[in-house]
């Protein structure tokens, strides 16, 4: 890391080079005697943007993620430094962009981020880049994707965007260390299911157990990723305009869910006494019709965004996601509130059996000492079930481009509520970021 820091310091002086270094540690606080570090990563992002003139711009981005959790499982591995400090290198935004080959036209080819929507942090119409759930504190992070995109804005009041993404890339999931999810049932669970089934047929529990014990249980996963054929690519377009104090856009995207839909299949063969469990996982193809609006009315910023997802198959069911909100500043306090009907953008919420939920999201913040200190109280409420995610933040900016964060993650919720899977994940987080 010392070498990496030195390299970064040297490169920081290079024209067109920027980026940041971030490190954060999460301490799980369920009980003091068992408090443990649940997430600890250092991430360094390097973006090189050479000056190619007014007509062309380019970007080369790299991201290094250092996970300091040792992956040693044997004393024989002590000579393998990659197991002490596993580093992942990811390609960031890497593209070539041509400006104004025709007046108002921009063409971009390469690995890029394309954000749509006007709502704050949660955008039902934003379906181009796979979510990056690997940082449990950041809900709206996305990974860049290989795509071709064009933006034609002949005037301030009107613009059209078209894009095509030939390759499918799924979401990056939250680390198993932070939130363990059993995707496949264990043999014991399946055998217990057989016992219950036999009892249901009228057998006594002893006979049912004996009979179930004689079964051979096979567990398999049938994972299918979309083919990278032209007809399977993701494509779409968006038209946007503004008049008076309103910004409006309408969009369509033909693409895939970023997390797979799981369909279990259980086949019991009484003749061979075999139980075959197969979890079929596929990424559902869908067409998303969306629209959004933002306005400035009487000193209040208002926005609304909606997307209708029509799936090709019967599972999952078609769904509507709607979010509306406002922000307002008064006496130095900034208030931001949104109401969401739809999926919460967190990997765990996707595991819920009940897809549609209603959430109230709100944040109140204020800056002090010439904007050097930011205090924010924010969270999300699962309205129907009453569960809550509370995320307080204190950020100190001791110098330009340096941020020190003290944050918290507090979850409450009974079984069946959106945040119930996180009930034991209350955490205190310390973080630092330096941009250069």
């Amino acid at each position, binding site marked *: 890391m010392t070498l990496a820091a030195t390299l970064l310091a040297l490169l920081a002086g290079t024209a067109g080079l920027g980026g940041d270094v971030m490190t954060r540690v999460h301490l799980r606080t369920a009980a003091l005697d068992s408090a443990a570090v649940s997430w600890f990563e250092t991430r360094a992002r390097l973006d090189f943007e050479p000056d190619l003139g007014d007509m062309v711009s380019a970007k080369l981005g790299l991201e290094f993620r250092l996970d300091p959790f040792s992956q040693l499982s044997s004393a024989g591995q002590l000579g393998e430094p990659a197991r002490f400090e596993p580093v992942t290198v990811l390609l960031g935004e890497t593209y070539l962009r041509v400006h104004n080959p025709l007046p108002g036209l921009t063409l971009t080819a390469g690995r890029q981020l394309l954000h749509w929507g006007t709502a704050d942090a949660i955008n039902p119409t934003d379906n181009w880049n796979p979510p990056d759930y690997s940082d449990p504190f950041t809900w709206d992070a996305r990974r860049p994707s290989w795509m071709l995109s064009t933006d034609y804005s002949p005037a301030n009041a009107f613009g059209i965007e078209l894009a095509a993404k030939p390759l499918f890339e799924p979401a990056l999931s939250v680390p198993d260390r932070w939130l363990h999810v059993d995707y496949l049932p264990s043999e014991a669970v399946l055998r217990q299911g057989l016992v219950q089934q036999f009892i249901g047929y009228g057998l006594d529990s002893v006979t049912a157990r004996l009979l179930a014990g004689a079964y051979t249980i096979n567990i398999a996963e049938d994972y299918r990723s979309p083919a990278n054929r032209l007809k399977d690519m993701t494509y779409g377009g968006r038209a946007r305009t503004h008049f008076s104090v309103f910004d409006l856009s309408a969009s369509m995207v033909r693409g895939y869910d970023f997390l797979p839909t799981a369909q279990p299949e259980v086949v019991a063969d009484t003749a061979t006494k075999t139980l075959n469990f197969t979890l079929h996982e596929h990424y559902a193809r869908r067409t998303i019709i969306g629209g959004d609006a933002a306005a400035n009315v009487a000193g209040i*910023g208002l926005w609304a965004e909606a997307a209708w997802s029509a799936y090709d198959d019967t599972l999952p069911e078609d769904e509507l996601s709607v979010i509306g909100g406002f922000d307002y500043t008064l006496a130095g306090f900034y208030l931001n509130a949104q109401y969401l009907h739809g999926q919460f953008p967190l990997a765990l919420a996707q595991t819920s059996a009940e897809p549609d939920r209603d959430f109230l999201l709100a944040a109140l913040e204020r800056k002090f000492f010439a904007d050097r200190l930011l205090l924010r109280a924010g969270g999300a409420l699962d309205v129907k079930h009453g569960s809550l995610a509370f995320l307080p933040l204190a950020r100190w900016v001791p110098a330009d*481009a340096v941020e020190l964060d003290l944050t918290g993650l507090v979850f409450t919720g009974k079984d069946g509520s959106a945040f119930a899977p996180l009930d034991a994940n209350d955490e205190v987080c310390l973080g630092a970021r330096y941009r250069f």
Partner: protein
Amino acid sequence: MKQLLALLVVANLVAALTGSEVLDRVRAVTNAKDRQATAAMTITDKGNRVQTRALRTVMKGDNKLMMTFKSPADLRGVTFLTTSSDNMWIYLPAQGRVRRISGSAVDQGFGGSDFSFREISNLSFADNSATQPAESTAVDGKPAWFLTVKDKDGAASRIWVEQARYLPLRVEKLGADGKAKKRIEFGDFVNRGESWIPVEITIHDLSRGSRTELKLDSLKLNTGVKDGYFTEANMKKGA
């Protein structure tokens, strides 16, 4: 005798000017078809701690403005666009999206400076209208006009204008209680053709005790910037 008569005629002409006429002349003198410049912003807080920013700015007429921060690193690429006092947007590279700046947020600090979004977009007084006749006064010994103006949202300001060239010298932004909350000083005017452009603008936040200096450099006027330049797509590219 003739000289006295001439002075009286000039005095009468001067006295006949209304606040709106003075304001119109200020706009005419300080205007240009378009202007491009780099800018250095220096923010000095109450404790004399200094922060600096580098920007590039492109303006057309008196209401279309795009400004992009080039430094520091945490603001690099942040771009502000306004086409009228009701329409302001900001592009935040970290979020990758353009967001409308809502009504209340237009009074927030622009890039951590003492300029609000509203103030930085109205340095040419496009949104102001005079509410009272111009009064003759003096600033630093120079004859000056004193005007009271209001913007379209009703916020009042006092403006001092140099009588000889109709250049704005000082503006005081008034709060609801009629007291000055901020003071803007214009200086080092550069003459290009018929335009006089202030290349040093300093704003003082009188309640916070801080100030921000904006110095323009590499000023280019009337280069033929098109209306189509001020678009969302160009915000992502930057001014």
